[in-house]
């Protein structure tokens, strides 16, 4: 579905590229031995290297290099065996060295691809321009003192992967799906926890607009540091609208950095001096180039886990799931694993249904994620088994599930405890059927006269009389035999 903004001069399309900063899940920082954990006391996770004391030098964390390569492989990207760390020079209070060590001309990962499954069932291929490694900056706090800003360097030097998409995205929704998909891939790989609330993942969003059919891109604005999927989508929406308005007023959009203010739902220009940005990149002389050998890369490739796209194909092929269900189930690594545990040796479609409707519904209502589910995969599997061997009916199963979700008890125990076993004894059911027919001679005559719909009413009455425990198929059969036989 094409996203177009209607303007006075015609339709406008939005061109979006994202630069996603994903924190590598490492214990220690990229170039120093200090920890990366979130939420520590100020400047307690800062070494002399991070504080840029005179004469301090960087030594690279090899785990971070591995994670970058692994991520590159997960993005089906080219791995550059030769890459170079450069210094990006600028002054800012939370940048202690006066430069950020980053990769510029020679990133560790080159072009790759991410496939988006759109909710309408279509899929989109989004190009990855590059992935490079860099240091995070510290944190400035501006609201603690009327005249001063406070600086905490705990984050300074944490390893980030900057993943740059090509300007292939065309709507806020696509941008949202892209970020979710990227996060899913990173989590499958285990290279980044994808936690946007804690800043482990955030994005700079490049937005421009143009009339459909224009072949050149127009000037773009960069919205810095947006930290949730919702905000990314909102920021694109309002920024695109602003640009359309600007162009249509006969003005020019200027290339600049903007900030998104979610409270006011607007973007605004960051004040910057005219020649403030000249980063003067050059290779960091404190480090040597990163030269990897192909065997190292092959080793990482061989150990790569199954990723969402492959898993989705397998779920469709092996389990006969719909593309939609498969897509929902693989979005999250834990969910996919949960599903596979439930589906193993059972009716996979039924397992998928129970997960996507009953379990997700209950989790959503409770505000929990799959890792916190009170019902384990084994327990849900057992519930499916109880239905399969006709110990309980589907209707009873729903009640049992509710009880399981509340108490985390095994379904067998609940069924036992509450006496919910289905009645399959023909005599007992026949007695109930006879009773209902006798009590309702008028309706019985209607059925006998050819009104088949009324049979359903009889089934309901029998189920009611047996507190839902009668086997519905048997009830149905007996009613037919007796009323129409």
């Amino acid at each position: 579905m094409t996203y177009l903004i209607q303007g006075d001069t015609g339709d406008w399309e939005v061109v979006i590229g994202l630069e996603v900063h994903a924190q590598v899940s490492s214990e220690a920082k990229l170039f120093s031995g200090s920890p990366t954990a979130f939420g520590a006391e100020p400047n307690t996770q800062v070494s002399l290297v991070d504080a840029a004391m005179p004469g301090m030098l960087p030594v690279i964390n090899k785990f971070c290099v591995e994670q970058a390569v692994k991520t590159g492989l997960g993005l089906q990207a080219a791995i550059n065996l030769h890459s170079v760390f450069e210094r990006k020079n600028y002054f800012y209070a939370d940048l202690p060295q006066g430069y950020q060590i980053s990769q510029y001309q020679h990133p560790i990962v080159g072009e790759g691809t991410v496939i988006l499954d759109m909710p309408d069932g279509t899929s989109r291929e989004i190009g990855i321009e590059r992935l490079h490694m860099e240091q995070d900056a510290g944190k400035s706090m501006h609201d603690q003192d009327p005249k001063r800003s406070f600086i905490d360097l705990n984050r300074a030097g944490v390893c980030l992967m900057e993943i740059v998409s090509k300007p292939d995205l065309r709507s806020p929704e696509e941008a949202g799906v892209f970020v979710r998909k990227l996060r899913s891939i990173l989590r499958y790989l285990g290279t980044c926890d994808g936690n946007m609330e804690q800043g482990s993942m955030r994005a700079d969003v490049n937005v421009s607009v143009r009339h459909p059919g224009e072949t050149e891109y127009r000037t773009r604005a960069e919205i810095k540091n947006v930290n949730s999927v919702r905000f990314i989508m909102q920021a694109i929406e309002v920024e695109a609208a602003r640009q359309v308005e600007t162009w249509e007023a006969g003005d020019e959009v200027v290339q600049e950095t903007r900030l998104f203010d979610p409270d006011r739902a607007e973007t605004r220009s960051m004040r910057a001096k005219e020649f403030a940005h000249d980063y003067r990149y050059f290779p960091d002389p404190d480090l040597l180039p990163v030269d990897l050998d192909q065997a190292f890369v092959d080793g990482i490739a061989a150990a790569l886990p199954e990723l969402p796209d492959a898993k989705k194909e397998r779920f469709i092929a092996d389990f006969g799931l719909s593309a939609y269900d498969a897509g929902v189930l693989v979005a999250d690594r834990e969910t996919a694993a949960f599903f596979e545990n439930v589906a193993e040796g059972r009716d996979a479609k039924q397992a998928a249904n129970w997960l996507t409707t009953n379990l997700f519904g209950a989790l959503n209502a409770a505000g929990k994620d799959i890792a916190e589910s009170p019902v384990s995969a084994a327990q849900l599997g057992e519930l499916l088994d109880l239905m399969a061997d006709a110990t309980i009916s589907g209707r009873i199963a729903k009640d049992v599930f509710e009880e399981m979700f509340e108490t985390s008890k095994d379904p067998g125990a609940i069924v036992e405890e509450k006496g919910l076993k289905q009645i399959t004894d023909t005599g007992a059911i026949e007695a109930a059927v006879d009773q209902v027919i006798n009590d309702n001679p008028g309706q019985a005559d209607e059925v006998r006269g050819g009104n088949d719909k009324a049979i359903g009413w009889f089934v309901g009455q029998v189920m009611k009389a047996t507190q839902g425990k009668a086997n519905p198929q048997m009830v149905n059969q007996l009613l037919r035999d007796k009323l129409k036989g």
Partner: protein
Amino acid sequence: MAKLNDLTLAEARDGLAAGDFSAVELAEDCIAAMEAARDLNLFITETPEIARERAAQSDARRAAGGAHGAMDGIPIAVKDLFCTEGVLTTAASHILDGFHPPYESTVSQNLIDAGAVMLGKTNLDEFAMGSANMTSYYGPVKNPWVGAAGEDLVPGGSSGGSVAAVAANVCPGSTGTDTGGSIRQPASLCGVVGLKPTYGRCSRWGIVAFASSLDQAGPFARTVRDSAIMLKAMAGHDPKDSTSAPVEVPDFEAAITGDVKGLRVGIPKEYTLDGMPAEIQALWDRGAEWLKQQGAEIVPVSLPHTKYALPAYYIVAPAEASSNLARYDGVRYGLRVDGDSLDEMYENTRGAGFGAEVRRRVMIGTYVLSAGYYDAYYVKAQQVRTKILNEFKQTFADVDVLLTPTAPNAAFPIGAKMDDPVAMYLNDIFTVPANMAGLPGISVPAGLDADGLPLGLQIVAKPFDEETMFRAADALERAAEFTAKPKYLGGQGG
């Protein structure tokens, strides 16, 4: 009786080992010499208490039979570019006012571990940027040698305080750093031995950075043997420095065999400069003759890109410096001059904190890295550097060492060459190529000029072949029989 501060390092070592005197006695004589030489402005910070404490510890170790080796109990001076834990470290810059590092540089720690006794932190050109020790925030250092008319001379730079302390017999050894000649050029101007090892031989961790791809620490001493002893204590692989070489440190002193028979000594013809004093050319020729007489083979060689090393250096070094010095921003240590905004605070702090030469180089470096100029200057200079390195590699396929003058002139009066930066830069014309190629080089005092001022000759060797460098330098030293002494000796001057 001669004062103990007059002893060479090897003599002091032997005396300590023989029990002729204690480390405390040795330290006391050096402390007295340091105090008597204050007129030379050698030290930014004197640390006599540390010296006494470490000397006493050394004596205690020795008494217990656990002396740490050749450097145990030897008093040294440390260039104030090495961060020393709890001791003011300034890089001779206003911008590091009051900075007491909470850490010790690897090289100075290695020396502590070897038992060396620190007398204090020596004066230098601000951030090691200079060739005359004229750019120090703490004022110029006087060369212990004086001019023919008795005028005060520069010691060379940037390691002016460290070189002059050794020349004036304040101590037998000191540390320096050499980015473009900052050890070898002052060694030549002060009549001592100074050497820059191979890039990667000494750790740069904890040394205030000037130009990361060029900076190397090295020793000053009065003899080749002394400098070999001291380098061994300073050098070694450091996992904290990504550019530190994971190679064993050989016993450099043992490499001094006295035998240079068959050694192939290259004489690069491009080191003959127009307008170079005839006595420097004559000394160079004499040096070649001395080596030849001892059985070495003299080989004329050509290094045509040598003349471009200095201009390329003045792109690469300022570029790296402009970035390395960005951390002096008034936030975490040192000087802050307030301003109404963060940017104003930066500009005020750095405007007031940096002296004229540092300011010039930071701005040159900023310019050559800036958009539109990067390829024309920085990339070009690094390409030229590749050519220089390749040229050295080819030459060293044929010869073992190179012999050149160390500096194009002897010590000059304080205040001279100050109005023309480029004239000052030319002091390093013979020393810079070794930095650009990462090669080890040593300056050996080899003679006096007409005014009675010392001149040095330089031996440059292959990477990590300091042993051959020492062997050749020793041969030069023995032949030169350099015994002249400066006017100010042990702080006593006529």
